[in-house]
């Protein structure tokens, strides 16, 4: 039975994913019969390359994605190197859940209001500088996309930090740190020279996922990114929603181009990895101790704190917005307060949370079961069937979601499942499985096989080994993957709306629709509501292992960062 799990997993993915890809590829070469496109041709590509500023858009996507990912990885690695095993590190762990649960768009809105020329920081300055009008300078929507990079970094740091936390127990970091310290290495140098080479392979997939996401992000780019021109993914969204249906052909070519941009970014990243590996090999052996790294250590804490602080402060300010009366520049606080909008949404909240859970619970349960099944099968069999094909699971992360949706809709309509809970769950699985897979696979594969071997030698059946040895050992990783999966399914807007044909009004479909009205109060309310479920998930992921294993010191080490 178990041997079929990888096949079932891939079967779940292959229909929707290939339908999504075909639905993008065919129109990209002129074929979309519903719009009269029957003859294959290159016209969509010619039209695309004719678009003014196309290459600037491509450059923005590529460079900003790479820069944002690099900064995020660098800060997380530096912070872990500098502070692992300290009180600062544990404090950071604790503020992780709220930040991780903040939807990207909410975090971006919060950040935008914080740093904009008419934003909260500028209002503080205005009190002393006596400004009556905000300065006319491009802090957000700046041509270089710096604000967008900042928004991405602030949001990706917690994700990468969580993934690193899950990887740390397998790398025997504490004893390594003791040895490097004994040898006279500074904290950071010791960690980078001895621990990083063992940690990085474990978080590599999440890093690549962050890179793919940053290169094709839409919502953060709209809120913070440049507009003349915008990054490629934003322009694709514009073409796809243009009333001129003829633009759909060109938009499909652009989506293929976007896919190539993501692949290009990954290729550049991997080339960079190689270079760093070669250089790092020499550096690790050269014996320099870098014992005086106090400045760099403080620096990493400040950067990580700044990123976390920006998201949290932005969130607090959005909370204030949600109860604000008129709040103009340069007032630091609103002129009045009102619970009016909260009252108005109060009745509907339970219904929307219910619909969200109706989709989320089966989706996450199926995803966890499938991923565990695949990984367990991989452990039990000597050869690794289907492990190569497992790459298919990551495909949905590479293509911008919006361009995927048309083919996906056609697919579900064709098999007659559109508008049903089943189809919405399957559509969510397409986007949830990759994240569950990448948060669970590395810890699972890194688990010391001797635990299982010992149990088998005592006569336990393979099933018993899984349920009573491996699964308990992996409690923390499974809970984390569940929480990540929950956060991803709760955040799905397009699949819920389009595949569900509006039959499932979740917190997120409401939030995104209401956010289009531009009122920061509604954005605040629904941003906070969107946080509720993921927050509960991440909190459980931290609390449950702690409670379950409170009497087991060894499990504590296994399940601690």
């Amino acid at each position, binding site marked *: 039975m178990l041997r079929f799990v*990888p096949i079932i997993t*891939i*079967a779940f993915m292959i*229909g929707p994913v290939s339908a999504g890809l075909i639905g993008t590829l065919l129109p990209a070469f002129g074929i979309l*019969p*519903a*719009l*009269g496109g029957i003859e294959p041709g290159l016209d969509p590509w010619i039209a695309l390359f004719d*678009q*003014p*500023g196309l290459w*600037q858009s491509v450059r923005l996507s590529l460079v900003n994605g790479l820069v944002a990912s690099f900064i995020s990885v660098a800060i997380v690695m530096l912070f872990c190197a500098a502070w692992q095993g300290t009180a600062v590190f544990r404090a950071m762990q604790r503020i992780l859940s709220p930040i991780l649960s903040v939807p990207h768009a909410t975090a971006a809105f919060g950040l935008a209001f914080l740093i*904009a020329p*008419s934003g909260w920081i500028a209002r503080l300055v205005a009190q002393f500088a006596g400004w009556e009008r905000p300065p*006319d300078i*491009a802090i957000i*929507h*700046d*041509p270089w996309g710096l604000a967008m990079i900042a928004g991405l970094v602030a949001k990706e740091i917690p994700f990468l930090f969580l993934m690193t936390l899950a990887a740390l127990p397998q790398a025997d970091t504490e004893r390594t740190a003791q040895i490097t310290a004994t040898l006279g290495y500074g904290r950071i140098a010791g960690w980078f020279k001895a621990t990083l080479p063992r940690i990085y392979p474990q978080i590599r997939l999440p890093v690549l996922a962050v890179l793919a996401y940053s290169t094709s992000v839409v919502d953060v780019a*709209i809120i913070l990114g440049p*507009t*003349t*021109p915008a990054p490629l993914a934003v322009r694709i969204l514009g073409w796809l*929603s*243009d*009333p001129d249906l003829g633009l*759909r052909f060109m938009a499909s070519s652009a989506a293929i181009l976007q896919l190539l941009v993501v692949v290009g970014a990954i290729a550049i990243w991997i080339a960079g990895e190689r270079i760093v590996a070669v250089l790092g090999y020499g550096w690790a052996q050269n014996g320099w101790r870098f014992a005086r790294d106090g400045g760099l250590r403080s620096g990493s804490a400040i950067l990580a704190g700044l990123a976390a602080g920006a998201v949290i402060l932005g969130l607090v300010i959005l909370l204030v917005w949600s109860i604000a009366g*008129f*709040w*103009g*520049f*340069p007032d630091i606080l*609103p002129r*009045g307060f009102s619970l009016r*909008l909260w009252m108005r949404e109060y009745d509907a909240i339970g219904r929307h949370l219910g619909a969200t859970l109706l989709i989320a619970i089966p989706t996450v349960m199926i995803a966890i079961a499938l991923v565990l099944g695949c990984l367990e099968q991989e452990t039990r069999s000597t050869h690794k*069937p*289907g492990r*190569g*094909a497992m790459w298919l699971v990551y495909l949905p992360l590479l293509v911008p979601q919006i361009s995927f949706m*048309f083919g996906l*809709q056609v697919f579900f*309509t*064709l*098999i*007659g*499942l559109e*508008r049903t809970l089943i189809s919405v769950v399957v559509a969510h699985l397409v986007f949830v499985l990759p994240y569950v897979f990448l948060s669970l696979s590395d810890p699972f594969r890194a688990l010391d096989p001797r635990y299982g071997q010992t149990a088998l030698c005592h006569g336990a059946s393979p099933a018993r080994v899984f349920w009573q040895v491996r699964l308990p050992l992996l409690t923390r990783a499974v809970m984390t993957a569940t929480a990540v999966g929950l956060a991803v399914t709760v955040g799905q807007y397009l699949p819920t*709306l*389009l595949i569900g044909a*509006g039959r499932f*009004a979740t917190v997120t*479909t*409401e939030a*995104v*629709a*209401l*956010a289009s009205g*531009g*009122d920061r*109060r509604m954005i605040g309310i629904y941003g906070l509501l969107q946080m509720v479920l993921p927050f509960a998930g991440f909190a459980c992921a931290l609390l449950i292992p702690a409670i379950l294993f409170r009497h087991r010191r060894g499990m504590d080490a296994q399940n601690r960062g």
Partner: protein
Amino acid sequence: MRLRMRAFVSALALATGIATASVSVPAFADPAPDVGNWQSVLDQARGQTVYWHAWGGEPRINDYIAWAGDQVFERYGVKVVQVKLTDTADAVTKVLSEKTAGVNDGGAVDMIWINGENFAAMKRNELLFGPWVEDTPNFDYVDVKGKPTVVNDFTVPTDGLEAPWGMAQVSFYYDTAKLDSVPKSAQGLLEWLVKNPGRFTYPQPPNYMGSTFLKQILTELVKDPKVLQQPADEVDAKAVLEPLWGYLEDLQPLLWRNGQAYPQNGAAMRTLLGDNEVDIAFSFSSGEVSSAIEAFELPDTVRSYVFDNGTLGNTNFVAIPYNASAKAGAVVLGDFLMSPEAQLRKQDPQYWGADTVLAMDKLPADMQEAFANLDLGIASLAPAERGTVLPEPHPSWMELVETEWQKHYGVVQ
């Protein structure tokens, strides 16, 4: 490698197996209602559920839609569910994907809030049901003579494929506590910006509010506005657009952020005014400005006004896709939306504040009085204050202006 391939192939077989095993289109065909026979429409509609795809960004509008749904349910037994969209294009995509999959019956979308280019595109691609509008009872009240746009959507004849729902007219707004006088023409706006650089902007075309601003300027500057009623390829478009580009040449550097960044839609522009980043903004409905004041988005000293030579006006509509599942229900809902009662509530700024499509002189006396007694809200313009309504240019002008704008100003780096 072999094994890997085998796993892949069996997975493929399984997937296609699933796909072929369950090819069953959810087709419960909904026969086209006979709109001429109203009682038969009502009979057919009873018990149906209408999924109405409409922009969901404004809580007041969502509430109004919910109210209309309750009314139609009580009176005709038709259930209405609003599918809240960020963009009408999502509904168009839905219908298009169904057509691609061959679902010509039992579609997911029963009604769309629509106008302009989206309507033109759906009509051209034969994605709409109808004609149905002109046979509905309440269409008799519609002001076809006085408001020609109720049957001509951006110059495209509606041919009974969409029912007029509300009137819209461009109006500008500003904070009276900050400005004493405001420019009331295209030329005046430019002169005002020379003195107040950076204090005005418009949403980035092809956002439709942004394109509307360009069309407003074009209509004002063009020598003979009638030429804009014809398709652009039938006239010397380059010469017609000349004055617009000349004007923008001067305007662009004076815009907010020197024209290097733009708000992405009308709501974002309104937020800029609330944040005191700009002094003048515009909207398609002065009632919306009153609503925004009541929602604390704008200070209560904001007021609306129009340009001296008039501003663009148009109508928005509801339409039924060709493959809707509940056509009769949608027709009944569409008819109710045109009823004097529904239109009265729609114009009341307490609920929404959007202008009616009805002709006052066609209404019963008590309804006329009710309309006359409406308190329109502090920043709304009464009909007498609105000046001339200028007709929307043919959609081809919009496309041309958007494309050229993108070339000239869409890429500044």
